[in-house]
């Protein structure tokens, strides 16, 4: 009887040892699987956070779930789920690049559109202001709605606008649309100020 219970005890201990060894065998692969997934996310870089934040968040959330499984010693569960999540994580880099290119193309299209509008109107605005300033410069007395100080500031603004327009045109010719549009916006500001000071309106 004593021998029987000793044998049963031995078998239980042996079984537990085998199970423990099995678990320990899966722990390292599970740990490595999570590490590989996290490395794939890191490889996607800051572009993933900027251009595909929702997709990145989905993968990050799933990594957290996987880590929870690991903490609960469900190494089998981690190993089973890891391949699909790894594929998703590896896809982040390509998705971020595509999203970034699409965003840059959209931004360039917007700049081109803004340039078209500004370049269609600003030369005429500057010409109209120029014509009025030339005539007023011959005047023996300024009109009632314009004092000398304001007229001087209009002339300065006009000179600045012409310089800025040359810079904008040069930037556009060189393909630097951001610089071209930035300069053109400044031309518009100066032209609008001059038109208002002169009591002129756009039709």
């Amino acid at each position, binding site marked *: 009887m004593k021998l029987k219970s000793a044998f049963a005890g031995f078998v239980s201990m042996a079984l537990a040892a085998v199970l423990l060894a099995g678990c320990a065998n899966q722990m390292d692969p599970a740990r490595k699987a999570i590490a590989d997934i996290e490395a794939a996310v890191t490889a996607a870089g800051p572009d993933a956070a900027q251009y595909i934040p929702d997709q990145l968040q989905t993968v990050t959330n799933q990594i957290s779930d996987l880590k929870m499984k690991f903490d609960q010693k469900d190494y089998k569960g981690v190993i089973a789920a890891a391949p699909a999540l790894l594929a998703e994580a590896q896809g982040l880099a390509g998705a971020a690049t595509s999203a970034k290119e699409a965003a840059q193309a959209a931004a360039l299209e917007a700049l081109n559109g803004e340039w078209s509008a500004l370049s269609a*109107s600003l030369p*005429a*605005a500057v*010409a*109209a*202001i120029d*014509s*009025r300033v030339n*005539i*007023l410069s*011959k*005047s*023996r*007395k*300024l*009109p*009632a709605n*314009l004092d000398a100080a304001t007229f001087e500031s209009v002339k300065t603004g006009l000179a600045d606008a012409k310089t800025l327009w040359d810079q904008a045109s040069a930037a556009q010719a060189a393909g630097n649309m951001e610089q071209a549009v930035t300069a053109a916006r400044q031309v518009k500001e100066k032209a609008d100020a001059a*038109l208002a000071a002169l009591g*002129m*309106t*756009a*039709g």
Partner: protein
Amino acid sequence: MEEKNPPAWGSPESDPPAQEPPAAPADSAYTQWYEVKSGDTLWKIAKEAYGDGSLYPEIFKANQDILSDPDKIKVGQKLRIP
């Protein structure tokens, strides 16, 4: 309504023969327009726009497609004010 502006261009005898009116200048959204009212002359319009009526030839020059004579403007005419 034909008040006279001071003479600016020669006497009628030396006027050149009638010609085609000049082509309209290229207008833009920034062309300033003025509608002639009763009692207006180019001198008065120039005085209002430029502070100096003697600059009326600038208005005439800008409107030679519409005006053949700076002394002859009509109520309702729309003139460019450069």
